[in-house]
């Protein structure tokens, strides 16, 4: 079974969720300063991985993210990114194909030749 590693980090107002699998690394970047708290993402997340934070307190000045991410549940499907009206979510995918092993690479170039 393919291994799936996840971790989460906070940098300033950015919450960075990361998923690492064998071929790619997906970074979900949630900048809560941009977030309007509309909770569209909460309603549409297919995994119910997003939850509303303390919206009333935030409205009164509390410095906290209006949306909370459940890292275990998140599937990194990117729907929140696509639907966010304020573009508070950003997703970057980095493909990292494992470098072909030297012997294999030599074999294939031989075959091509």
């Amino acid at each position, binding site marked *: *079974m*393919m291994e*799936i590693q996840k971790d989460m980090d906070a940098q300033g107002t950015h919450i960075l969720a990361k998923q690492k*699998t*064998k*071929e*790619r690394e997906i970074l979900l970047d949630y900048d809560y300063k941009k977030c309007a708290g509309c909770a569209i993402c909460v309603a549409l997340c*297919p*995994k119910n991985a997003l939850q509303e934070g303390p919206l009333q307190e935030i409205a009164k000045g509390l410095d906290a993210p209006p949306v909370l991410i459940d890292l275990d*549940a998140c*599937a*990194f*499907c*990117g*729907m929140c990114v696509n639907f966010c009206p304020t573009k508070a979510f950003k997703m970057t995918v980095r493909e990292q194909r494992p470098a072909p092993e030297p012997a294999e690479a030599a074999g294939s170039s031989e075959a091509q030749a």
Partner: protein
Amino acid sequence: MPTGVYVCHCGLNIAGVLNMDDLKSFAEKLPDVAIARDLQFSCSDIGQEQIHKDIAEFKLDRVVVAACSPRLHEPTFRRAISKAGLNPYMLEMANIREQCSWVHMDQPAMATEKAKDLIAMAVAKAALLHPLEPESIPVSKDVLVIGGGVAGIAAALDLADSGLHVFLVERRPTIGGYMALLTDVFPTNDCSICVLGPKMSEVYNHPDITLITYAEVLGVEGSVGNFTVSGVRQARYVDEKLCKGCISECSNVCPVEVPSEYDFGIGKRKAIYVPYPQAVPLVACVDAKACIGCTRCAEACPAQAVKLDQEPQDFKLNVGAIIVATGWQPFDATRKEEYGFGRYRDVITTLQMERMLNASGPTKGEVVRPSTGKIAEKVAFLQCVGSRDSSVGNLYCSRICCMASLKNAQLVKEKYPHTDITIYYIDIRACGEGYEEFYVRAQKLGINFVRSRVSGIEEVEGELFLVFEDTQTGEMKRVRHDLAVLSVGLEPDEKADVLGNLLGLSRRPDRFFEIAHPKMRPVEAHIDGVFIAGCASGPKEIPISIAQGSAAAAKAVKLLHKGVLQLEPTSAYVDPEKCIKCKLCVDVCPKKAIAVKSPAYVDEAACKGCGSCAAACPADAINMRFFSDEQIIAQVRAATAVKREFPLIVAFLCNWCSYGAADLAGTSRIQYPTNARNIRVMCSARVDPSFVLEALRRGADGVLIAGCRIGECHYRDGNYQALQRVNVLKGVLEKIGIDPGRVKIVWCAASEGEIYAKDLRDFIGELKGLGPIGTELKAGKMVAKTEEKNEEDALA
């Protein structure tokens, strides 16, 4: 043209009602009749020999048989006269059984008078018959089997082993149907998938079977021997060639879980899944409705088989025959609200029980209470849920549920000997080889049987209580159980509706597909070249479904193995001198068989003889070889020569549905008045307005035209054309002062004998209100004498 007339007694079926001597002496006096006889059974060898002898002795060149429906014995008598050297098409039949003696049993005198008209009509038509030579057309030797359940699998394998190529189309991602999901099967309690699995892989590996799964048929054109079938293959988002069937690499990483339809909701599957480990083809499938597009599966697949950009693919097949094996669906138990299925977690259906008992099922073979996950200790089986129940519209017995519950009860008892099991039944129906013995075995195992239909299930503080009357003691009881299993009945697969409409299949009142004859033609549809196998035509056990699949295969082989098919030489033809090149015929032809290449030309192999072009042609340039204008006019004139009763109705019935309905009224002994003189035409669109006018002019009080139900025409839209012509004709009649109510068009399917009888009774009532033909002309004060003369001219 010496004609022989044979009036059949059919034992007492005809002679018991009609006066045979009277009919025989009436027939003798008809023009050109050289010999008239009454025969005990004209279809018997003795009867046929008599006809044979007479043809030689009296030099007969045409024969009229007044007996049963031509739909039954026309082929028999055609064979008989061709043995005697006549052209088989020099035969005409008068239907005096299904459409006379059987439907007028209590009015023998009037029925005899009607029979005289029917015989006179047949003799008049016979005088105008011409010898016809049948043509042969090449046919496709490929067969389409729709539905990959056990019946479809049996049919496909038998066909392919006989050397015909098979296209097996299945809607789901795997073949196997419901049988693949069952645990052990009755009455031997052997494992279901163990016997079906090898057959499924045989289908997959057979060089003469093309398996098309996850696909649906969307269009069928053409006819027997040459069907063109179009359909679409859904995107499964997995490349069938690349997928190695490892089952779990992709689904393990899929983050989406949904209830599995293969476990009937008690188990879960992922958005990418293999239905079950024995699925054929063993290829994963992405459920597009559940997938969230995270692409983890694509990354995880070691064979790179996941193709999320796959698109649905159209396919087109040319086949000679089609076998419909669309199967069944379980009754939706939520419709019986009193049992609380869907509300109480411990109320389940037979199919969920099957999955629980299955060692590879969601509970790994444990029978548990869904609410607690603990082993159920007191289990109830409720029979006839959705069967034998008029409150849900299912009057029929589903045949397999008694045995299925007996089997499941035994399996539970064998696994957990201390379980208290009760079966609540109306009647135990255990008729089949080894079934009664199986029932006795269940009793010996200590399973309780209570004769009762449970009136309701209540849940109080998480405990189920069954409320019922024990009909053997008359006591009302309320008994607690851990688990209640609803023995749901079988219903026709509702997704097969589209296919039924495409093929023009008719349905019985129980909504299953109707077979051509309830006893004699168990796997044939009403449409040539289409066969029905398995539960598509009613609930059946596995062995019967297999037998029907094999029987349908044998029928298809019989039809196609020669590679050619003899056509009825009943096609249309054009008189090039008369053709005015208006192209109306091209527009009305449902088979695209006519081209206007100055003048019009009919492709006689494509023509199916509906006759709509002949009715549409404004120049009367098109005629039919078998149901010619002259023959039909002769029948109309014979029917109206002597007006034996009021109202006298000339009825035109289409061969496929309404003539079949009138025959069915006969076989069902539905009684109705004798007023109609029926003329068989291939399609209601054959009815030229001039036939109707001729009938009215000759004194018929009304004309009835009966076609297939709207949307069900066997020639696509002939009945719409008939309707349009009748509407125009009604306008013409109104203008010339004749009540348009004298022409009526009705629709009935071949299964609707009662509706045909009712339509006729209604029409007779309406005509009685109008009075004899011409009443309205005399009554109409506004109509001046001169105008009346014009009308007569118009009619002429």
